[in-house]
């Protein structure tokens, strides 16, 4: 047997058969003593004296026992059990201290576990079941438009086919798109998240269907495919109760009824970043139902996202080169069919690849950056919490100085003492970490609704990665909070500590404690500045004039579900819907809308006499509306007039342009009266009759995005029936009444959707709302922790200086003098923290800048408020101790030790 194995076997026996080994050891010792006594007796010593001699030569029984146990190599374990017991007893004896520390750490660790869970889901974790995710990449296509570089991840179906045919660096190419489609029949119809995917999509995963099968190449064949559908696990459970006889049943998805052939396994979401898909459809079947047999050559319909699996021996650079070559070949084919797509030189198409997680790719939104910031903030809060706990431990350590010195003098080794203190910190950290997981559980329930689909399960307590993270955080906390006090206790001059009492004037403020407090103040200031900036950003976003009312507008639209209408029928339906809507109580005004903010937008080519390349001067969005358009939306006319009944269908064409558009096209000139040709260079002149305020349609922040308005009846083409409605009264009630009324006008399986305008605009404010909420919450937490830290430090100082204060008062210091002395001590620390924290915030401001909304990250107002707040809190925190200091009775203080 190797020595190592023997050692292990021995130690294990020692661990699990401890009692047996102890019994054997005692028997062995007794045997030894008996033999020794026997020897002495045989030599003629009286039995009593013999026993004494034997005892004396053996040494103390207990000592030998301990040493022998130590030789077993398990002493540390036994000591640890002892330390843990000792720590827990000590902690239980001081419930206030323990409760405060555990709560502090729980909030710190919980906040971090929550943010880790969200970041992990957003940035780190590969989608469930994805096989070998390092070789799977999302495709991004780049091109130039009007001299601007654009990046997208929308490609046409024939481009996908071209990649399949010509790419040599890929093992698999999968096309997919997740969109909202009506699922179900009649009253049961709901808009659900549907993933339309190529058969190859499933080959990227190691997922086995929970039931039936996924669709394969024969189902996904060009052009028509098969009308089959695979159910998502959640939808199968909620809609079909998990019944196994769903296979073969019919389910209407989008326009066509399809046969259910399988159920995806639990947790499967594909590559979707838009929630959990209810069902999966073959691309070909869906595209055929939407566009008919011509779609496989339709290069103009860019709607698919692509993901590829790279061959193992191909580098990413080689993959991008290969895909770009395919993309260029595909572009040539497209140009041969439709010459208006531009030339290779002007468009410069190319492909890059990114990780499967959207938030890590080039199109990562503001969300993931805000989440990363908040995760950093959570970490800072944890640091502050640790500083607080370390501080509390230190003050205990200082007041236990003599006890510690006595123990050291009695022969307890410093290492043993340090271990004991660390054990106590570890116990506290573990209690805090466990409670923190509960905090994280609540926290993530609240926060995930900010970012993820509510159906998605994100259980903190059962998630291994979050648990590991929480474990690491807990260990870190134990080290951070335990090491400083432990080392401080483990060092220092023993003799001095033993000799000195309080009388000796052993008062000195611990430098470590002061440094910790300044650190806390610094970090708190930085967080509070961040909180202030985000709050002001959020206020700016909320107060931001979108260019239309969001509170009193409803948006109504129709989903035709395969019902095909001629142009005349569509126009007829639109006017029927308008008059039906007018009957609904609470509806004040309404208008058709070609573009709807954050929902859909239209664009047309524009030609202006005397102005070259209008398109390069901005992104111009077409809005076409009814006579009441401006009165309904609340968009203000700045100059000139709105269009209305005075502009008949056959009369002179009119146009209203936004202020920014007027400046972009006619800088320094009056736009009124100018001529704009829409759609064709030869179209009749539309005369600018008014200039309207700017509106936000596609993006919240985009200086190049402008809108123009034409009467719907002059557009010369039918408008898709989208209606904006101005209402009074209860929004939800009017919306429901409106939906019911409109539904009655609709043909076949088509159905109406009515949503409040702000449900479209609110998500735009999400990142600021989240940032403001979290920064304020964490900032407040940091401030409270720092205040507690300050209070305990000052209170401790006052207690230590009782004698000194007594002397001062005996020598004639007044109450305000003494109080001022105490308060000034606190404020000095806070001032240092304030200066450092403000510096830190200024230094960090350059990274905060583009997360702000019309808000300077160096706003003096915010810095001023934080300063006032901090001093106010510092005053409150020091007031108590100062009051106590002022009540020091010199008589008592001078006599006490």
């Amino acid at each position: 047997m190797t020595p190592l194995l023997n050692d292990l076997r021995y130690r294990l026996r020692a661990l699990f058969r401890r009692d047996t080994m102890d019994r054997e050891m005692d028997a062995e010792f007794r045997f030894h003593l008996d033999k020794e006594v026997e020897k002495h007796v045989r030599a003629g010593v009286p039995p009593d004296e013999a026993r004494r001699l034997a005892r004396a030569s053996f040494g103390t029984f207990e000592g030998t026992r301990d040493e022998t146990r130590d030789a077993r190599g398990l002493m540390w374990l036994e000591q640890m059990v002892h330390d843990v017991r000792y720590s827990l007893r000590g902690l239980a004896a001081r419930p206030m201290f323990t409760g405060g520390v555990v709560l502090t750490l729980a909030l710190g660790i919980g906040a971090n576990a929550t943010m880790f869970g969200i970041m992990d889901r957003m940035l780190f974790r590969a989608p469930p079941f994805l096989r070998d995710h390092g070789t799977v990449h999302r495709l991004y296509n780049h091109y130039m438009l009007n001299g601007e570089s654009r990046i997208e991840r929308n490609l046409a179906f024939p481009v996908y086919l071209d990649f399949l045919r010509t790419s040599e660096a890929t093992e698999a190419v999968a096309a997919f798109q997740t969109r909202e489609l009506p699922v179900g029949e009649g009253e049961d119809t709901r808009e659900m998240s549907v993933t339309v995917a190529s058969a190859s999509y499933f080959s990227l995963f190691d997922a086995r269907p929970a039931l039936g099968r996924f669709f394969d190449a024969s189902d996904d064949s060009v052009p028509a495919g098969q009308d089959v559908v695979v159910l998502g696990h959640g939808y199968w459970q909620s809609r079909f109760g998990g019944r196994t006889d769903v296979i073969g049943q019919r389910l209407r998805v989008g326009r066509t009824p399809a046969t259910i052939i399988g159920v995806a396994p639990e947790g499967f979401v594909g590559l979707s970043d838009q929630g959990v898909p209810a069902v999966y459809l073959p691309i070909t079947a869906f595209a055929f139902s939407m566009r008919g047999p011509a779609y496989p050559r339709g290069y103009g319909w860019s709607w698919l996202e692509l993901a590829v699996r790279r061959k193992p021996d191909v580098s990413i650079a080689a993959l991008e080169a290969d895909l770009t070559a395919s993309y260029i070949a595909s572009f040539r084919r497209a140009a041969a069919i439709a010459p208006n797509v531009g030339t290779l030189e002007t468009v410069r198409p190319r492909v890059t690849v990114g990780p499967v997680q959207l938030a890590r790719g080039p199109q990562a939104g503001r969300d993931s950056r805000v989440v990363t910031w908040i995760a950093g903030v959570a970490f800072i809060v944890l640091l502050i919490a640790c500083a607080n706990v370390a501080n509390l431990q230190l003050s205990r350590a200082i007041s236990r100085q003599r006890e510690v010195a006595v123990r050291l003098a009695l022969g307890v080794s410093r290492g043993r003492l340090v271990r004991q203190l660390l054990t106590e910190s570890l116990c506290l950290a573990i209690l805090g970490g466990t409670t923190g997981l509960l905090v994280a559980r609540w926290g993530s329930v609240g926060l995930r609704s900010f970012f993820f689909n509510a159906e998605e399960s994100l259980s903190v307590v059962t998630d291994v990665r979050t648990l590991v993270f929480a474990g690491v955080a807990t260990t870190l906390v134990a080290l951070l909070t335990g090491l400083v006090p432990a080392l401080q206790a483990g060092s220092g001059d023993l003799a001095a500590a033993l000799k000195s009492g309080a009388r000796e004037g052993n008062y000195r403020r611990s430098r470590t404690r002061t440094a910790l407090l300044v650190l806390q103040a610094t970090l708190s200031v930085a967080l509070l500045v961040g909180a202030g900036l985000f709050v002001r950003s959020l206020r700016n976003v909320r107060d931001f004039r979108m260019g239309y009312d969001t509170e009193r507008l409803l948006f109504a639209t129709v989903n035709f579900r395969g019902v095909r209408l001629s142009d005349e029928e569509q126009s007829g339906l639109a006017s029927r819907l308008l008059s039906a809507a007018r009957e609904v109580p609470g509806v004040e005004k309404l208008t058709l809308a070609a573009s709807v903010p954050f929902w859909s937008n239209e664009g047309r080519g524009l030609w202006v006499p005397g102005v070259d390349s209008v398109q390069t001067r901005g992104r111009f969005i077409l809005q076409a509306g009814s006579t009441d358009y401006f009165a309904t939306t609340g968009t203000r006319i700045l100059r000139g007039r709105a269009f209305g009944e005075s502009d008949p269908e056959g009369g002179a064409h009119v146009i209203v342009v936004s202020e920014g558009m007027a400046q972009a096209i006619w800088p320094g000139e009056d736009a009124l009266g100018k001529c704009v040709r829409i759609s064709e260079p030869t179209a009749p002149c539309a005369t600018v009759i008014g200039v309207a305020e700017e509106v936000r349609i596609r993006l919240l922040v985009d200086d190049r995005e402008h809108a123009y308005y034409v009467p719907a009846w002059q557009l010369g083409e039918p408008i898709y029936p989208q209606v904006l409605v101005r209402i009074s009264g209860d929004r939800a009630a009017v919306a429901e009444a409106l939906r019911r009324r409109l539904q009655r006008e609709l043909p076949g399986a088509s159905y109406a959707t009515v949503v409040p305008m702000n449900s479209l605009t609110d998500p735009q404010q999400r990142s600021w709302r989240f940032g403001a909420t979290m920064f304020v919450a964490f900032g407040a937490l940091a401030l409270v922790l720092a205040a507690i830290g300050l209070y305990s430090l000052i209170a401790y100082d006052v207690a230590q200086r009782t004698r000194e204060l007594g002397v001062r008062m005996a020598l004639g210091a007044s109450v305000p003098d003494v109080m001022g002395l105490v308060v000034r001590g606190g404020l000095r620390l806070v001032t240092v923290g304030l200066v450092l924290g403000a510096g830190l915030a200024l230094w960090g401001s350059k990274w905060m800048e583009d997360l702000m909304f019309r808000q300077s990250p160096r706003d003096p107002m915010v810095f001023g408020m934080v300063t006032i707040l901090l001093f106010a809190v510092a005053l409150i925190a020091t007031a108590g101790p100062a009051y106590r200091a002022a009540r020091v009775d010199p008589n008592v203080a001078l006599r006490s030790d």
Partner: protein
Amino acid sequence: MSRLDLPQGTLDLLILKALSLQPMHGWAISERLHQVSRATLQVPQGSLYPALHRLERRGLIRAEWGASDNNRRAKYYQLTRAGQKQLEAEASAWQQLTTAVDLVLKQS
């Protein structure tokens, strides 16, 4: 003659040497060391047992319960093969060391 304290680490060597003759229990080992050294070496009995247990853990000796001369159960230790090798190595190292120290001492 005064009694000598054992230099650090030599107790293990002496125990191994004692056990190389025959298996023995703890008391017998201490007696033997006492006698063979002509009562010069003072083996602290208190440190004998930790050393025995440490050697057992390292696999250099093996312990078994057996009947002693007057039929009481006693724990007998015996050398393992690893212990035999260790004894040889340590004994020769000790010899070299003492020879070298002797040389130095005699020179002056």
